[in-house]
């Protein structure tokens, strides 16, 4: 279509609509979102808890991060007796550090020279939120959930983690009543480091098992 831009009414050509980010309200709520909201409203109305208490709880859950888990891992690296207790019972060991790991039993699975662990929940998105925060979106994706059991080494490689064939890749599918976190191996070159510095090396992803801890030289 030819336009005569010399003409003062030359803007009569149709504009392509500019793509826009839909408002929250334009994304239809799912059944469970509606139910959650309704039950929340009812409980507030009935005085079971206040709107402020509900808000504060949501805020507290959203504020969870990998920090508690990282602190536990760093302490386990520094103190072999604590590590043994953590491998025995994560929830109880957490109490020693004044960390609330919640009522759902959590297991730590230890990476060693011969074994690399990685966690997935193929059926939903079970995850130790109180210790490592909210799960990343990819953890909940169908692609991660199906491929991690089917081709774990390819998935790990996409996260930049390439492991030799003499290391056993052990995939943990947490489909039931327990939650899992990886206790990574302490990186070489961190001898004499204090726990705070060690905890800096412990990322969320290395506690899921898709990566190793940060390199101390980075």
């Amino acid at each position, binding site marked *: 279509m030819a336009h005569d831009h010399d003409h003062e009414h030359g803007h009569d050509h149709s504009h392509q609509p500019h793509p826009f980010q839909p408002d929250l309200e334009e994304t239809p709520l799912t059944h469970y979102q509606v139910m959650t909201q309704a039950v929340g409203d009812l409980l507030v109305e009935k005085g079971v808890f206040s709107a402020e208490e509900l808000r504060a709880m949501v805020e507290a859950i959203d504020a969870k991060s990998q920090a508690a888990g990282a602190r536990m891992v760093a302490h386990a690296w520094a103190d072999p007796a604590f590590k043994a207790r953590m491998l025995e019972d994560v929830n109880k060991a957490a109490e020693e550090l004044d960390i609330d790991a919640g009522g759902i*039993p959590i297991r730590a699975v230890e990476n060693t020279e011969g074994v690399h662990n990685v966690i997935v929940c*193929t*059926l939903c998105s079970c995850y130790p939120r109180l210790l490592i925060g909210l799960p990343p979106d990819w953890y909940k994706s169908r692609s991660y959930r199906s491929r991690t*059991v*089917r*081709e*774990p*080494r*390819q998935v790990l490689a996409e996260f930049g983690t390439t492991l030799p*064939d*003499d*290391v*056993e*890749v*052990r*995939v*943990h*599918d*947490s*489909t*039931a*009543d*327990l939650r899992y976190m990886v206790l990574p191996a302490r990186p070489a070159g961190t001898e004499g480091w204090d726990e705070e510095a060690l905890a800096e090396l412990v990322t969320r992803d290395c506690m899921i098992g898709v990566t190793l801890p940060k390199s101390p030289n980075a």
Partner: protein
Amino acid sequence: MSARFAVGESVKVRAAFPPGHVRTPFFVRGKTGRVTEVLGPYRNPEELAYGRDGEPALPLYRVIFETAELWDDYRGAPKDTTVVDIYENWLEAP
């Protein structure tokens, strides 16, 4: 409740495909693994999912499989393993 299987024992996951809420992944059904841990009794999720009380509770096991046994064309290393938590009603002697 006493657990029917002990650590180290071989177990076979039932090759069953019932309707409803089931927490046994398809990829282990009909496969044989080994018990690495008896986790204790947990309420039956197949009942809990429908608002019932989940009693009687079922022993829950950690079962380890050779990953190459789970998939016909597994491209990882032969020593790779997969551990799945499985309720006792899904396990039988191989």
